[in-house]
Every structure is written in C-alpha cells, then in structure tokens.
C-alpha cells in the first residue's frame, strides 16, 4: 500500500531510519504524520477527506485533540498511533493504533496494513488516556517503587520474584533503572492528570529522579 510521510521532527516512534520511514512514497492514499508537531503536519495536507487514511503520531495526548470530538460520534479517516517505547529504551515492535467510535473501517484497515507491512505489530485501541500499555503498566511500576520504599523486599528479590514467578524478562526495578525513572515520572504524571486515579500518581522515587534530572 503506497503511503507518504510527513516528518515534523523529533519523532519518538521513529527516532532512526526504519522500514516505515524508508518505504514511504512521494504520494499515496495513506499519509503518516510523525514528529512533535503533527498538528502542523495535519494542517498542511491538501484535500484531507479524499485520503484513505491519515495516521498521526501521538504523545500522551488523545487523538481527539487533533480531530475534535462530538457527542461520542466522532470518527473519520484520521487515526492516531504511537510505537511503544519506555523512556530511553529503543522503540518496541508494538504500534498502538488509536481509533474513535466512528472511525472509517477502510481507514483503520489501511493504516494497520501500512504498519504491519513495515514489520510492526499493531494493537487497536480506543482513544483513551494511556492507550493500552501505559495505562496498564504505570500503576504496576508505581506500586513496585512504593513497595521498595516500604521494605516489602529488596530490589533484587522483587525483580527475581517477577522474573521467576511470572516469566517476565525483567523485574520492575531493573526495568525502571534501564529506561529512566524520570521518564516514568513524565508519563505517570500525565496519566494522573488525565485520569485522576491515585494509582498513576508518580511514586516518590520517580519524583526524586525527576527533580535530579
């Protein structure tokens, strides 16, 4: 499926050359907008409604910020996406593809195909804060940091327990050390503001790391 790419700079999803960025054509029925200023990229697309799909890279914001919303019936040929990435770690293969209640089915299918053809895995989700993975793992990571403060177990024993007991490739403390506690603070804080749920309030150790960053 031919697609074109609008790069507005400093993409978190594609910080380096990738099959997706390299496989873009000069023009196509699908437009992928990456970088930190997708609003500008989106505004520059001529005859937007004639495209099969337009997919814009999201940070922690909802797709509705870029498309507008109306009575729970919003949805068009514009979708959102983010390639999952923890802090300073390399982006994973996972693309969370964000739809709205009335997103065009053909647009969804076309966007999915573009990412899958570039070797990525696509999980479709609705337009809610944190999408799937951040929404699920941030409370878990906060809880691990809190329990470390409370002396439930040593960092090594907590990590070992989750690796041996659940087959996780890495325990929560080692994962946070590798990918950055301050980066965890940023995402958790954004979700805490969006959801108002105390489970997302950044744990003390993440706050300390942020203040020292």
């Amino acid at each position, binding site marked *: 499926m031919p697609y074109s790419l609008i790069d507005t700079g400093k993409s978190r999803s594609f910080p380096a050359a990738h099959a997706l960025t390299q496989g873009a054509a000069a023009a196509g029925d699908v437009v992928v907008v990456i970088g930190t200023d997708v609003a500008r990229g989106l505004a520059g697309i001529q005859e937007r409604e004639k495209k099969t799909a337009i997919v814009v890279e999201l940070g922690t914001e909802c797709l509705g910020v870029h498309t507008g919303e109306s009575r729970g019936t919003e949805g068009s040929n514009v979708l959102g996406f983010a390639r999952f990435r923890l802090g300073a770690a390399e982006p994973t293969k996972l693309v969370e593809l964000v739809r709205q209640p009335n997103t065009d089915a053909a647009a969804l299918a076309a966007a999915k195909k573009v990412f899958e053809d570039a070797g990525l895995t696509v999980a479709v989700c609705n337009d809610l804060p944190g999408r799937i*993975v951040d929404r699920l793992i941030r409370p878990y990571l906060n809880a691990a940091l809190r329990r470390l403060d409370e002396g439930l177990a040593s960092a090594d024993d907590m990590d070992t327990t989750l690796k041996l007991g659940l087959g996780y490739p890495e325990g929560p403390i080692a994962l946070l050390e590798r990918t950055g506690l301050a980066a965890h603070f940023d995402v958790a804080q954004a979700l805490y503001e969006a959801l108002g749920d105390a489970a997302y309030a950044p744990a003390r150790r993440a706050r300390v790391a942020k203040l020292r960053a």
Partner: protein
Amino acid sequence: MADIRTVGVAGCGTMGAGIAIVAARAGFRTLVYDTRAEALAKARKQSEAFFAKSVERGKLKPEQVSAILANLVGTSKLGDFKACDVVIEAVFEDLKVKHALFAQLDKICPAHTLFASNTSTISITEIAGGSGRDDRFVGMHFCLPAQLMKLVEMSPGLNTSEASFQAAWAFCQALGQHPVKTKDSPGFILNYFLIPFNNDAIRLVEAGVAEPAEIDKAIKDAMGYAMGPFELLDLVGMDTHLLVCEAMHGATHEPRAACPPLVRRMIAAGHLGKKTGRGFHVYKDSKIFGA
C-alpha cells in the same frame, strides 16, 4: 537446629502434591498427609506420571525414580508426622482450618520440627499465632506448578526466630528451589503485583479501551511477557481469580485488588476460562497444561 531429613507435607491438593514431588526429588524422605484417601491415590498416580516423564526427558534415571518414589509416602494418619523435621502446610486457605491442623501437629511433632505454611494470602504471623510454636514458623509460598517453578517466597512472622528462618532458607535451597525474602504482607510479592495488574487489565476491557486479544498482543509485544493478562486469567479461571481477589482485597482494602464486576458476570455466564472452553478467549481444547 537439627538436620532436616524427613519432610511432611500436609494436604495433597495440587500445591501439596507438587511440593511433595519437589521434596522427594531433592532426596528427602517425604510424608504426604491428607484425610481423603482418593486425594492421596490421585496424587500418587500424578507423581508417578510426572517422574515417568522426567525419565523420558532424560532428567532422571529409572533407578533414581525408584528411590524417589520409595521415599515418597502418603498417609492419612497425622501421627506419622512425629518423624518430620519440617512440616509444610498446604491445606485450604482458611485460618481456622490451618490453626486446627497446627495445634494437632504441635502435639505430635518434636520440639525441633519447623512449621511452614504455603499460604498465598493469609498472614504468616496470624497462622503462626495458633501453631503453639510461632518462633519456629515461616512462610514458604511455592508457585504453581511447584514441581516446575523454582521460586519460593519466604517470609518470617513477627515472632519467627532468626535461627528458624535461616534453617528454613537453607532447607529451601536444599530442595533445589530459589528462595526470595519478603515481609509477611498480603500477597507477598508475586500476588501483590499480579492480582491488581490482572484486575487493571479487566477494567481496561470494562472501560472499552481495547478488546482482550488486542491487550494481550500489546503487553506481550511491548513488555516481552510470555503470556498476556487474559491468557493467564483464562488459565487461572475466573472462579479462582475471584477467590484470590476477595482474600487480597479483604486484607488490604486496596481498590486495585477489588474484583471487577465483569468477573462475576463471566462466572454467572459460565465463562470461567480455558476449563469451560470460554473465558476472555474462546478455546477448542479445554485440557489444562501438563494434563
């Protein structure tokens, strides 16, 4: 602290039978107690089948298995535990049941015998309080299936002596297991993190964030987990998940430990998980792993 030669396992449900396999395999004389003769017979058959597989896979020699099985003895007489240097309790998760068992064991067993509980959600200090020997009592929480999983969460109660904890720790290592130390706190480490995580995943479905299959795919790909939360929940079963949630939430009152309403609806609808052919996913094959 006397050397540990003979191990008693009280209760031969899935966990007890698995722990007995671990102890016998490590070379300890192992007595397994249960009041139900049919449970003992079933556990014996399963143990024999397990060790036959170990031979098939080249992990043990046939003569080793003969010695192990000769050392693994079922009994319906608790009095036989007078020979035990350590007793691991793996009976129903009910404080009264455990207290009644340990009160009897305290009379039967010599003074040096260490008591351990495999409880996953009840406080070690509370169980120890009714054991008559709370200084010689430790938590030893094995993972399911115990015969395959190396992890044991070990917790001292408030009155556990350092010498008893060290002796239990050394015994756990002699079992060939990997002990980790945790406070006597609801869910210890594993369930403290796992139960709320699974509930959060269920709440994502309730909130319409994404379909279970999409969530499983996302978590596996992003985090490198072997199983997604819904694949795991379907294996555990909604009925069991509800029980663990109730125990955890009852002990902690943490909102994330509370069982989401969808689980009760799924139980009412018969969508218990893999064992009924349908949970969050639909299955053609309802056999549980290893069966």
